[in-house]
């Protein structure tokens, strides 16, 4: 319905609705997604079986999935899985408990924010990965190391998002409240906090991913118990299929976390359609 060379912009649903009704808008996308995934899996299988990539470098799709299935019946797998989740959860939890109050404090006080601007800007870009050797030597290959790493990494995105959320309130709303004699603490509690919830939700989505990356990194490099550790062990024993199967498992874990927190974020954003922007 457009001039040649112009793809449908934005909502094409006006046209599709005319064509097929419910099929086009609901079933067709799901079908395309399913086909797309199937195509990828098929391609994977084909590439290996046709010899384009050696099977010792890339196990077949079917082999990998069946290995994963087998692993899921072992206790070791689920223990490791639980350990990774534990490290992640603790890291994210502590980071949240630290970052949100600090963020609220820094966000609501112009003075505090200015005072701490430089340290935050300098500490922020330090990749937590660089702390691995330090942690190895101080806290050792323990849960604390893993949690510390995950916390350190997850802290910063959440802090920044919280600060922006508290700051990004419409000044007109605040001025109105002030003119009605609403006190400072109440303004924080009733206006700034609720309006910063979407930002915090975005921060959680980002931080939950970072926490997982770091928990896994700690396990892979330091040997703290978890999926990363058994992947490292499998690799050193040359058990390629297991390495791939574990990567799959980790991918699913990452996906589950993403879906959960993205849904939470959407929920939070729904109430504040104006506050959509992610802080730079």
């Amino acid at each position, binding site marked *: 319905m457009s001039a040649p060379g112009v*793809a449908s*912009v934005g909502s094409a649903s006006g046209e599709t609705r005319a064509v097929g009704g419910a099929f086009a808008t609901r079933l067709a996308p799901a079908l395309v997604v399913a086909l797309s995934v199937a195509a990828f899996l098929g391609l994977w299988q084909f590439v290996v079986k046709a010899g384009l990539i050696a099977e010792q470098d890339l196990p077949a799709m079917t082999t990998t999935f069946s290995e994963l299935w087998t692993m899921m019946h072992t206790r070791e797998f689920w223990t490791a899985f639980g350990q990774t989740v534990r490290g992640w959860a603790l890291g994210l939890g502590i980071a949240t408990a630290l970052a949100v109050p600090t963020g609220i404090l820094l966000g609501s006080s112009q003075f505090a924010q200015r005072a701490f601007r430089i340290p935050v800007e300098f500490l922020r870009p330090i*990749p937590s990965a*660089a702390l691995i050797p330090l942690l190895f030597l101080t806290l050792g290959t323990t849960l604390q190391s893993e949690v510390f790493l995950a916390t350190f990494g997850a802290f910063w995105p959440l802090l920044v998002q919280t600060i922006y959320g508290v700051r990004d309130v419409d000044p007109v709303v605040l001025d109105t409240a002030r003119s009605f004699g609403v006190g400072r603490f109440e303004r924080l509690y009733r206006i700034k906090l609720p309006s910063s919830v979407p930002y915090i939700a975005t921060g959680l989505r980002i931080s939950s991913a970072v926490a997982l990356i770091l928990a896994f990194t700690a396990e892979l490099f330091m040997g703290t118990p978890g999926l990363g550790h058994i992947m490292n062990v499998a690799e050193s024993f040359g058990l390629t299929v297991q390495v791939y199967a574990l990567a799959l498992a980790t991918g699913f874990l990452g996906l589950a976390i993403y879906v959960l927190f993205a849904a939470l974020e959407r929920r939070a954003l729904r109430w504040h359609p104006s506050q959509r922007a992610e802080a730079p």
Partner: protein
Amino acid sequence: MSRRAYQSTAIAAELAVPLAILAAWQWWTVQAADPKFPRLSTILVEFRELWLFSQFELHVVPSLIRIGAGFGIAVVVGIVLGIPLGLSRWARIAAMPHIEWWRAMPPPALLPISVILLNSIENRQKIAFIAFFCLFPILLNTIDGVRGIDPATFETAQSYGVRGFERIRRVVLPAALPQIFAGMRTSLSLAVIVMVLTEYFSSTSGVGYVLLISKNTLQLAPMWAAIVLIGLLGYLLNLLLILVERRMLAWHRGWRAATAQ
């Protein structure tokens, strides 16, 4: 307090707080006398000796090359793929499951695989690894940037017969560029992290490698110097990107300011 007084106090605080933190760091490390936490002064000395400039060529340059190449590839591929995906709804639907999957996958989980699959720990493995993971923030932001283009802009192009590659070059790309730069900033900080990870995991050169070796040989001062360097690299690269962005998006700031009224 008066505006003047407030301003000068704020500036004083801006300078005083970092200095106070550094001073406290120095004081604490002297007090603790723990070899694992060398004095700040020792670290700084080691930093200068190590990186300026004896080991610079040996380690810093390879690391920078890997980041540069990986990031560069990610930018090009991200934009080239992102624009058509942003324009076509069905292509987007088909590609989304893959994008979401790889974006949710923690990079370290693929480290062993990258070595196995590419059969090497040379530069090509590292650059490929960095490029792969840096791709996604840019790709996603390009898609969002294109999708967010005002329909009026497209209608104008359409009514003047601006089509195909020309439309992409003169309308779509400039319009999406602010969002693309946001993705590039995320990608760049990701590049530094991923570089450290790959070098720490399996390498014979680079800053991450130095980190590993100094840990293994229990040389704490160089280890700390490496940590400081990594932080500094991240900061400087980010600064560089911001400068480039300022130059290329000067129009954007002006436009936002003008339309904000």
